[in-house]
């Protein structure tokens, strides 16, 4: 018993002595704090086509991502426009583990729109449906025979809708000089105006302008396209 006690004492004394001599061991590193995360949606219920705002906060996270959006900043907010009800899922990862947060946005169908009321066509609609442009031959400003029916149709409509004012634009194809084409376009616009006036359309209703080759309808270099661009173009004037 004594021997045991002495031995134990010696061991303890030796141990105490050895402990005093050694530097204290470094304190164990503190356990990294666990990340925190929160995610909210505002509003949490929207109609199809509307947007909601997702807002999130995290702490102690180095890697934050939201499913369907991807990597994001530690704190932030972002508008989203889900088409169906969606649960957004945020994952915040850090040295201390990972944390998740979710937010749900409920998407509801909007009430059906009221049945469309059949609107009366406006003068502008009628104008564009009924009035035809007048096409010209190359380098010509005279209205050719096959365009007379367009002119007659235009006269009929314009005389029935005497309140409509309009502009005749003279256009040319891309060939030839800029300046000559503007003068030629002026002659074309005037030729169309004169034909309409001669058939009884009031001159005061008609403006003319030449665009020469400045505003082509078609930009290819072939006869089909050039013919499209050689015209008197009638435009409703608001």
């Amino acid at each position, binding site marked *: 018993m004594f021997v045991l006690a002495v031995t134990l004492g010696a061991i303890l004394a030796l141990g105490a002595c050895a402990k005093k001599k050694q530097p204290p061991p470094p304190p164990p590193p503190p356990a990294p704090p666990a990340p925190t995360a929160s995610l909210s949606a505002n509003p949490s219920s929207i109609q199809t086509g509307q947007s909601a705002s997702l807002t999130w906060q995290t702490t102690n996270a180095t890697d934050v991502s939201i499913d369907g959006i991807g990597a994001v900043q530690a704190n932030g907010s972002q508008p989203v426009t889900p088409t169906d009800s969606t649960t957004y899922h945020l994952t915040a990862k850090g040295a201390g583990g990972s944390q998740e947060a979710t937010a749900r946005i409920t998407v509801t169908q909007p009430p059906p729109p009221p049945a469309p009321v059949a609107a009366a066509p406006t003068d502008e609609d009628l104008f564009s449906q009924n009035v035809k442009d007048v096409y010209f031959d190359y*380098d010509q400003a005279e209205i050719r025979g096959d365009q007379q029916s367009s002119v007659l149709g235009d006269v009929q409509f314009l005389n029935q809708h005497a309140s409509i004012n309009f502009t005749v634009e003279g256009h040319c194809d891309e060939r*030839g*000089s800029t*300046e*000559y084409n*503007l003068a*030629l376009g*002026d002659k074309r616009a005037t030729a169309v105006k004169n034909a309409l006036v001669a058939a009884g359309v009031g001159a005061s209703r008609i403006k003319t*302008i030449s665009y020469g080759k*400045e505003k082509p309808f078609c930009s290819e270099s072939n006869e089909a396209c050039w013919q499209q661009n050689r015209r008197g173009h009638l435009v409703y004037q608001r």
Partner: protein
Amino acid sequence: MHRKWYGSGKHQDEILPSNTYRVTIFSHGDPISGFFSHARMNHARMSQHRPPSPSQKLLRTGRPGLSGLLALACALVLLLITPALRAQDWVKTGTGLGVEKVRLAVADFKPSSSDPQNDALLKTFNDTLWNDLDVSGVVELVSKSFYPLQVPGQPVDVNIPAWSAPPPNAAMLAFGSFGVAGGKLTVQGWLYDVKNTASPQVLGKQYTDTPSDDAARVIAHKFADEIILRLGGGIPGIAESKIYFVSDRSGKKEIWVMDYDGSNQRQVTRLGSISLSPRISPDGSRLAFSSLTKTGWEIMMYSVDLNRLVSFPHMGGTNLSPAWSPDGLKLAFSSSRGGSPEIYIADANGANLRSMTANKGPDVSPIWNRKTGAQIAYVSGATGLPQVYTMETDGTGQQRMTDQGYAVSPSWAPSGQFLVLAWIRKYGPGDPGALDLYLMDIASKQWVQLTHDGGRNDSPSWAPDGRHIVFQSSRSGKEEIWMMLADGTKLRQLTFTGRNTQPNWSWK
């Protein structure tokens, strides 16, 4: 130019002391007429010294029979090609390009300081000077690979025989020094007649300015013009002239301006509409053009001095293609205010408007005889496809100049002798031809084709020296501005961004 385009630096130039200012052999009393007589004499002399042609040799030495037939064939060939040669002759004589070209060596200027700015500015200067002289049409530049290794910066450095003997075999040498010191750029430049060892100095100039890229360019232009004035028959150089043009690079067609060599491009108008047909006044102070306004196409007036639009009356109808009279007091333009597009003349402020033409077809694109101010060339569709006409400024004496095809965009040469115009000579179904530039002698209506390289070539405008023409061409794939000598050589593309059209060269 009346206007400074670079910085606010004070600019001076002075003639360096020189007791051997030898300009007599190059200058003439009346620069134009003296020059032309010189050119013709030169041509005549060259003809005398021309070696006998193969056919002439044959005629002299050949036996009768087969060789006689050969001679006849050769004579026929000669007959066929002679008109073209003759055309080249009158082009060269009339445009001042027929003078025997002087072989000029242009040594890179020597840096006279070690300022850190110096290298970049000197490169700008050397490149600009070389290009100005290269495109001038009056000198033949000696390739730099032939130059002696010792390039002079000062008169004492010049080893005259090393330049006058082969390989350089130069007649003239331009050299000088270039340095930035104490915030000041100083350039000294000389022109030496290296065949005249006794008194070689033709020209010595010194320029000072605040250092900048613009200043380096402007000084190079000034020195180049001094050389061209002396070596080019007394006709002033164009290195300081400007070219106005239309560009869509801002998204809309606006008026822009650049130096004649394509540098310094900048926007003039910002109307956000469509602006076309810029025409700078003879004194460079006002720019007339045509713009689409709320009420239609109107002539607009821009003050270059005030940097803003100034008032010009709206005429009504479609108003296009203004043109200045050479005294700057009148404008001709096309107006459809009376129903059909006709040529009108008004005072430069728009007053005293009167019509000059009364045709069935559209009349447009007038240009004054800038030598006499007494005639106007214009385009008319009176007989169908547009043709170029001339008339007196009172509307009388209307004369058709082009005999066929589609002829537009005349520009009257400073000498008064020529028109350059855009022409599809052979127009018709299956034979669309090409829109090319032609030079026409007004008195004889003889013409010669200047462009052959494809694309649509239009809107020519003469340089004030009568040797250069600027125009638009689609040969590169889209419309860009090009310049060339009036005989069709030395083509240069000047613009590369967006679509650029309707160039108009300043009057000086």
